[in-house]
């Protein structure tokens, strides 16, 4: 692998990693507050991308469609929590997990029934798919836009968490829900906020994913979602910065390993889980995480 190829692959890894990171933030925040692996999170990403497609097909401009997609994903995410997770706050964790899997299957199959399983072409606008040539390097506009937006969003999320009273409430919830309730804070409202934030980021990640790889189908969220979760665990579940770090590590690994050893191409989807098992064996708290039972941001 010569230097140009390496650089080219680094650029590609940066955008792939950004998408994992955006989705991983949602996982890590929900886990931090509720100790729940939200299996449906990957499907929220699919819902976001699909709504953009549908809104655009209905005649909206692309930016307006993106707005519809993000708002729709927020709605679905918050509703999921209200309808399916909230009644189970006091129930055994296994019930919550099974419900999450049920919701995930429901969303996948519902979209399958409504829109069919055939992949659809995503209407990515030209100004985002243009390719800039710099010497021998090919630089798609998205390779610049995606990482920049991701880092801006990360900064925004950290600001909300550490500089606003909502953020303080979220961090407090992560430690002890009953106590926070006793202090007169609307815990359910704050949890809804977490779901809204996570779903919005998942939708943005899904839309980026659909722009980069312009074919969407109802099952697109499954594998990406699982990988993003693995990234969140790798970075240390409960830590937002860790989730972003984990996402980038996973993105770079997938791209570079396949570029360096093409024969390993078939194992690409397994890397995330190898990471997961390694992390659990040697450092169960992940890179940035402190304590599994006491997640924090």
């Amino acid at each position, binding site marked *: 692998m010569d230097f140009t190829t390496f650089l080219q692959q680094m650029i590609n890894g940066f955008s792939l990693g950004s998408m994992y990171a955006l989705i991983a933030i949602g996982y890590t925040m929900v886990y931090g507050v509720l100790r729940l692996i939200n299996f449906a999170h990957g499907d929220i990403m699919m819902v976001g991308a699909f709504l953009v497609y549908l809104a655009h097909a209905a005649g909206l401009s692309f930016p307006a469609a993106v707005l519809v997609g993000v708002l729709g994903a927020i709605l679905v995410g918050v509703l999921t929590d209200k309808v399916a997770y909230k009644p189970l706050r006091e129930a055994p964790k*296994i019930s919550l997990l099974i*419900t999450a899997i049920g919701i995930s299957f429901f969303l996948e199959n519902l979209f399958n029934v409504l829109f069919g399983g055939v992949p659809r072409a995503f209407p990515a606008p030209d100004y985002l798919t243009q390719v800039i040539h710099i010497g021998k390097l090919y630089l798609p506009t998205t390779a610049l836009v995606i990482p920049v937006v991701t880092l801006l969003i990360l900064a925004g999320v950290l600001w909300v968490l550490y500089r606003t009273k909502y953020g303080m409430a979220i961090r407090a919830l992560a430690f002890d829900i009953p106590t926070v309730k006793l202090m007169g804070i609307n815990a359910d409202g704050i949890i809804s906020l977490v779901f809204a934030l996570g779903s919005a980021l998942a939708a943005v990640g899904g839309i980026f994913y659909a722009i980069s790889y312009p074919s969407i189908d109802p099952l697109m969220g499954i594998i990406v979602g699982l990988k993003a979760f693995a990234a969140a665990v790798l970075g240390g579940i409960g830590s937002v910065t860790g989730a972003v770090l984990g996402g980038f590590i996973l993105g770079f690994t997938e791209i570079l390993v396949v570029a360096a050893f093409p024969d390993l191409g078939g194992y690409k989807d397994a890397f995330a889980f190898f990471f997961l098992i390694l992390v659990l064996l040697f450092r169960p708290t992940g890179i940035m995480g402190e304590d599994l039972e006491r997640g924090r941001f």
Partner: protein
Amino acid sequence: MQKLITNILLLILSVYLIYWAHSHLDNYTLSILNNIGIFAILALSYNLINGVTGQFSLEPNGFVAIGAYTAALFLIPSETKMDMFALVDPAPVVMQMHAGFLPALLIAGVTASVIALLLSFPVFRVRGDYLAIVTLGFGFIIRIFAMNKPAYTNGAMGLNDIPGNANFLWIGLIAVITFVTMLHIISSRFGRAMKAVRDDEDAAIAMGVNTFWIKTVAFMTSAFFEGVGGGLLASFLTTISPDQFTFLLTFQLLIIIVLGGLGSMSGTLLATILVMGGMEWLRFLDDDMEIFGYHTGAHPGMRMVVFAILLVIMMLFARKGLFGDKEISDTVRKRIGRRQQTAGGDA
């Protein structure tokens, strides 16, 4: 004593029923019964780790795949293997694998069990939900290996022309054996330790239970039967390929054990019949329906939407499933158990 006689009579009756079905029913009915039998084996063993021991694991598709591939490789004759492995020549060890039907099933079970032992070191280091995601990843990795190791698995093409020894006699009998074994485990000292781990792991540790060991044994037992079930599936279908062992398989089993009641073996058995029968019966959901003269149009896949909603509703409103964690015979047993206790008898 009375209980023993009832049990033996029930056993003889079920064996007779299996024999009768095998020799009297047509192929189609038998194939539905066979599906139910295989899924019962899988669901019963899945319930042991998930329901009885309370470890939320999502691995069955991985162990079923391991069992199916192992059994298939032991059953397929050498000439067929040479002919079938189209991508690369079969690995030498594959060519040496030969066994009869029953030994092949046993080897399939033991292989799955050994892999469960290896897997238990990383997964039982952490509690709860990590187990779910790691085991989910495990099923995924197994499928990726099945696809990328053509010298052992014939890659994406999978294996076919597997000798079809598995008929309803075998499948039915093994399902009965699985059921009886599971009931026996539950009521044994081990079973009580498993339930203790589920109900309160910290308390179990405080009482001196080696929880890691209990979980591992439950995991291995579960894997053994899942491996055997996988072997039966391979022989019953005569063809297997990696795309069969997706998460959908695990999801179906999960619905079954939740419906039956996590921890209840008789509930699982009943739920298997309901779900597997229901999948056939609910076909009408996918078709065009006429409601008050309005055509809904065909909605392929509606069945799965209904199953997903069913699962969520069960979790929200009927978390105990059909039987909770009790068995059908519990009311009877309680009475007899009391009598035996006073008489100092041993079950």
